[in-house]
């Protein structure tokens, strides 16, 4: 299949006024402004294949939103290239945006004072959605996103969760092959989040290519096979989600409680354990030790009462990546 998104050495710089402090700071800023260049996105490259669902994660200010804004044609890159479905987003913006769907979790696109359905009707005309397709999509989204109870209500009267569901529906009525979701679950409760994930899953099954930006790593764990981790405008990791955990922290935890405690719990081939109450906690590198073999031999040789293997949490792994990087990067 052809690559749908191609990004090469993409860079975006912003020139910001460096504000001076002190008594005469504002005065000096007015007459002799000093500018400083900030590189929000620093030469990133990646490809997206049709049908992929990618989690795009990184701490605040990492450059995620800036990337999305360039990918959706809102911002003009300072350097590098973006080619999406053969188009350069910012150059062919009007033609291009008819082919994509965008949801900004912190912005609204629906008409504030009018019923949701009115906004959808306008979008139908704007995107030239044929009648049957409109009916089909609306019917489907009503079910998945549970829109029926508020389709006739003015947007301003909706709860945040309802509004986000309506926004998702609006962004997808024209069947775009490519969807950009910028923090679609921000500020939502668990139930609302799950409903939105269900919708994303549905679109993914239908073959839509989706780039998902989020701070909620549960979104990523539940939905994405591939993740890209961004910090300081650079991609720190791009690949499989499972590999991410093993690559950055290969260590699992094995917690064992034996029938007779009192020994030092030393096991051959493993580091000495730490005692936590009834449990001995061993750190295991699955690349060196086969966990299934270890567990079965342990049951044969020792009177095991309870045994538990804990995989590192994605959150911890990601935090490690951020922390390591920021230690190595001079400010």
């Amino acid at each position, binding site marked *: 299949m052809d690559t749908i998104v191609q990004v090469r050495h993409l860079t975006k710089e912003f020139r910001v006024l460096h504000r001076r402090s002190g008594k005469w700071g504002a005065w000096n800023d007015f007459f002799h402004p000093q500018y400083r260049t900030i590189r929000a996105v620093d030469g990133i490259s990646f490809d997206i294949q049709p049908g992929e669902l990618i989690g795009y994660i990184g701490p605040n200010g990492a450059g995620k939103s800036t990337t999305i804004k360039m990918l959706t044609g*809102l*911002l003009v890159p300072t350097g590098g290239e973006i080619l999406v479905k053969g188009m350069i987003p910012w150059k062919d913006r009007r033609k291009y945006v008819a082919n994509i769907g965008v949801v900004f979790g912190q912005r609204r696109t629906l008409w504030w004072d*009018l019923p949701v359905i009115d906004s959808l009707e*306008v979008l139908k005309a704007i995107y030239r959605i044929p009648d049957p397709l409109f009916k089909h999509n609306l019917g489907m989204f009503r079910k998945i996103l549970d829109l029926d109870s508020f389709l006739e209500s003015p947007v301003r009267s909706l709860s945040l969760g309802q509004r986000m569901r309506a926004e998702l529906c609006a962004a997808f009525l024209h069947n775009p092959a490519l969807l950009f979701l910028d923090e679609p679950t*921000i500020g939502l409760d668990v139930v609302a989040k799950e409903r939105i994930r269900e919708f994303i899953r549905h679109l993914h099954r239908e073959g839509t290519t989706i780039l998902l930006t989020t701070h909620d790593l549960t979104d990523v764990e539940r939905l994405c096979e591939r993740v890209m981790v961004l910090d300081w405008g650079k991609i720190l990791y791009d690949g499989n989600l499972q590999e991410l955990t093993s690559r950055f922290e290969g260590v699992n935890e094995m917690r064992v409680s034996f029938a007779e405690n009192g020994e030092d719990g030393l096991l051959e081939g493993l580091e000495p354990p730490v005692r936590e109450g009834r449990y001995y906690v061993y750190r295991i590198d699955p690349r060196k030790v086969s966990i299934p073999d270890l567990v079965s031999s342990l049951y044969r040789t020792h009177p095991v009462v309870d045994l538990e293997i804990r995989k590192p949490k994605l959150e911890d792994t990601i935090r490690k990546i951020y922390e390591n990087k920021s230690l190595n990067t001079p400010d």
Partner: protein
Amino acid sequence: MQAFLKIVGISARQQMTYRTALVAGLFTNLFFGILRASLLIALYQGETSVNGMDVGGAITYVALSQAMIAYLTIFGNTEMGRTVSDGSIASDLIKPVHFILLWLGRDLGRSLVNFVVRGLFFIGLFSLFYSLYYPLEIGRWFLFFVSLIFSWLLNFFWRMLVNLGAFWSPDIQGFARLAFGFSQLFSGFVLPLRLLPDWFSRLSNWTPFPGMMNHPMEVYLGIYSPSQLLGAFGHQLIWLFILVFLCLALFRLGIRRLVIQGG
């Protein structure tokens, strides 16, 4: 085209939801209309005609220009500029419609509602206080409406031009206030251009502003000679081309500098 009409429609419906604001606006216009009319009568000091405009014509001028405040958004606004500074422009830019056309539709929808509620209703109420002139020839009504459409377009593109400044400056309020002050004065809204010194109305003819208010009013009153009429329409048309061109050019330049802050 269908999309444009839908945008006009939804904008009109949105405007209709602000009933209280519409009625309040109507009465504000009425209050200041009566004030302006009384002042003009006082200034005429019993003169029957000043520079080809009699008292009745001047009062009709005030009534019409007052009625068109909301329709033409003669005081200006910085609504579009704000979307640049707060980033909500993003929602418009991800739609496959030309940005300026989108705003044209939005403004037109609102203006049509204002034309009826704060225009026609206003004239109805105002005529309870003063007697107004009504043209008897169909032709003049026709010319008036054509001129009024041009003046709406001129107002729209003038406002757009001022708002496009937001791509270059994070706060255009001060600049916009100055710009809209100029356009109110030179358009003949503050006082009919005919009642101002000759050098001033000659100067104003070098700006697009008379086409935004003075021309349709004088077309309505039938003061123009046929050649002046032609000149007035030519003036409106030329300036419309210039403003449209400037808006498109500035938009193309500005969009490349866009910085969308936040999330």
